């Protein structure tokens, strides 16, 4: 599977997203990583170009709600049918509101790599 990993907003914490990138690569996926500080528009445009099977957003500065709402809006506008997921520093109590905002899945802080890699593997069967 081709996976697009992205860092929206101004947050510079990229250890987690790179750890996940390594893990997904080891699990046999093709990983495209945007690098830091991309706007949601940049990310959607990149998705259009790369046509990944899934998009992963990594957000640790606390702006996940605002950015996910924006992502939902831009994805609708683009009419791309790509599921997107979000992780980072996400309090467990925010998970359901992020999933209501269009995230196929939101992973709370403390989620293991195995869980995320497993989820993406299962997703393959459903998309």
């Amino acid at each position, binding site marked *: 599977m081709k996976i697009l990993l992205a860092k929206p907003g*101004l947050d510079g914490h*990229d250890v987690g997203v790179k750890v996940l990138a390594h893990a997904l690569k080891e699990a046999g996926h093709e990983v495209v990583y945007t690098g830091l500080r991309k706007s949601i528009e940049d990310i959607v445009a990149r998705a259009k170009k790369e046509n990944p099977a899934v998009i992963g957003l990594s957000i640790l500065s*606390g702006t996940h709600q605002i950015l996910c709402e924006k992502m939902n809006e831009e994805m609708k506008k683009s009419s791309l049918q790509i599921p997107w997921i979000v992780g980072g520093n996400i309090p467990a109590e925010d998970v359901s509101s992020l999933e209501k905002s269009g995230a196929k899945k939101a992973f709370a802080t403390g989620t293991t790599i195995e869980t995320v890699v497993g989820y993406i593997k299962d997703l393959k069967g459903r998309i």
Partner: protein
Amino acid sequence: MEKKTTDKKKACTEQSRSEEIKKVFLESGFEVKPVYTFKDAYGKNLNTEEELPGQYPFTRGIHPLMYRKRPFTIRQYAGFASPEETNERFQFLIKNGQTGLNVAFDLSTQCGLDSDDSRALGEVGRVGMAIDTLEDFEIAFKGIDLDKITVSMTINGSAIVLMAMYFALAEKRGYDLKNLRGTAQNDILKEFIGRGTWIFPVDKSVKLVVDTIEYCAKHVPKYSPVSVCGYHIRESGANPVQEMAYAFCIAKAYSDETMKRGIDIDEFASRLSYNFDIYGNLFEQIAKFRAGRRLWAKIMREEYHAKKDESCWLRMIAGGGGAGLTKEQPENNIVRTAYYALVSALSGTQTMALCTYDEAFTIPTEKAAEIALRTMQIMMHEVGVCDTVDPLGGSYYIETLTNQFENAICESMKEVDKWGGIINAVATGKIQEAVSYQAYEREKATQEGKILKVGVNCYRKEEEKHSVEFHPYNVEAAKKQVEKLKKKRAERNNDEMKKLLDAVREDAKKNNNLMPSIISAVKEYATVGEIIGVLKEVYGEYNEPIFF
């Protein structure tokens, strides 16, 4: 007598051999022996010259009496919402015995964007205080005597602007810049490795740092313009040896560039400082700092021919170790940070700051900040860490590790030279690639239970309920900040402003030192975003190489 000692040693060694003992390796790669002896620490040479604190190469500390004369400065990291709210937190910390300030800025300020920039949406005042103009600094430091409380600013990409604002504020309030103390983090090279608040291409970014070093050497001689951060490099996945090695390479790069401008090493080296990480094996960290002090002194004296002892001092802030803290059972972090504080004191730090127990979730609540402050105070006053200098000096284990560290840091620095020097290694993503893979390996080892983390992969509580409160985001403060900025932009002299910003642009084009024209602009309330915007026009922006 001698025979008896030999017998004892033999017995001890035999006992170790007879049992199947597990091999232990430190993160830095050194194998740990179950017992260390005089021979390990000092070799066969009995004439080993005794090292003393306050004497070159300063392994045991940069001052002869260290905390016996003056304990470490407590400088808890703080800043959130608007300058008004931050000023309240500053006052609270000072009232409770904090002796220095460590200012946190929000991400828009750190990335050089104004609070009303669309890219700053949701970030204004979130992870630190929002600063747009000098007016915000006037509010944030209201009622704080800049002579008595030294201010450290965690600012990098836009550091030259925030430093200019701080100097402008000091001048406006009547302080003599010749006596002004304080520190700016201003270590842009590490931002490319971890933390990520870079703005300009690598070479231009370094030029700005050197501008501040040059300006301070000439006009603000007691101010520390750069705090080189091994800390974030380690947080990004580097081991303790690499943390020190890369930080030293970075400090050398800034020094080399400064000397190219005809400034003597002794005019600025004593004002370079460091920020290091603490988490991990206690003994390993202590040895790391002792070796670091010795090696840095040797580099300055032998390679750079620094004459002044102060130029050879490794001065540091240490105590934090965010990567060691956990989201699970967050109260356990109070215990972890107390150990980190102890490591930091036993390592002879100049300044201490701890991560708070709630930092795996968000920025600290007042309660969490108070607990961190009390942790350091309990250690300072109740358990005797200030009584004698380098209390672990002479420990066979610590001395052995100190020597091992010194050699290993040298080797790691040589490797950077092979990569074409630190500036090249950063620009090409070589270091980022190396440390991010190590971060992955470490995370994997933790998840596989090879590295034990209490509450995470052992002694875990399922269905954990949080009993801690978290710092909320202040939306109203962000709105007010934007209103204040718009009002300031409207009421200042905008014809004059255009000229001042043109002067900054001209200086950038001519490759002049930018500090004087930026100070002039901020005095008339130029915004952070305007000045950084002008510099982006001339320098362009950094294009991140993608490595993982």
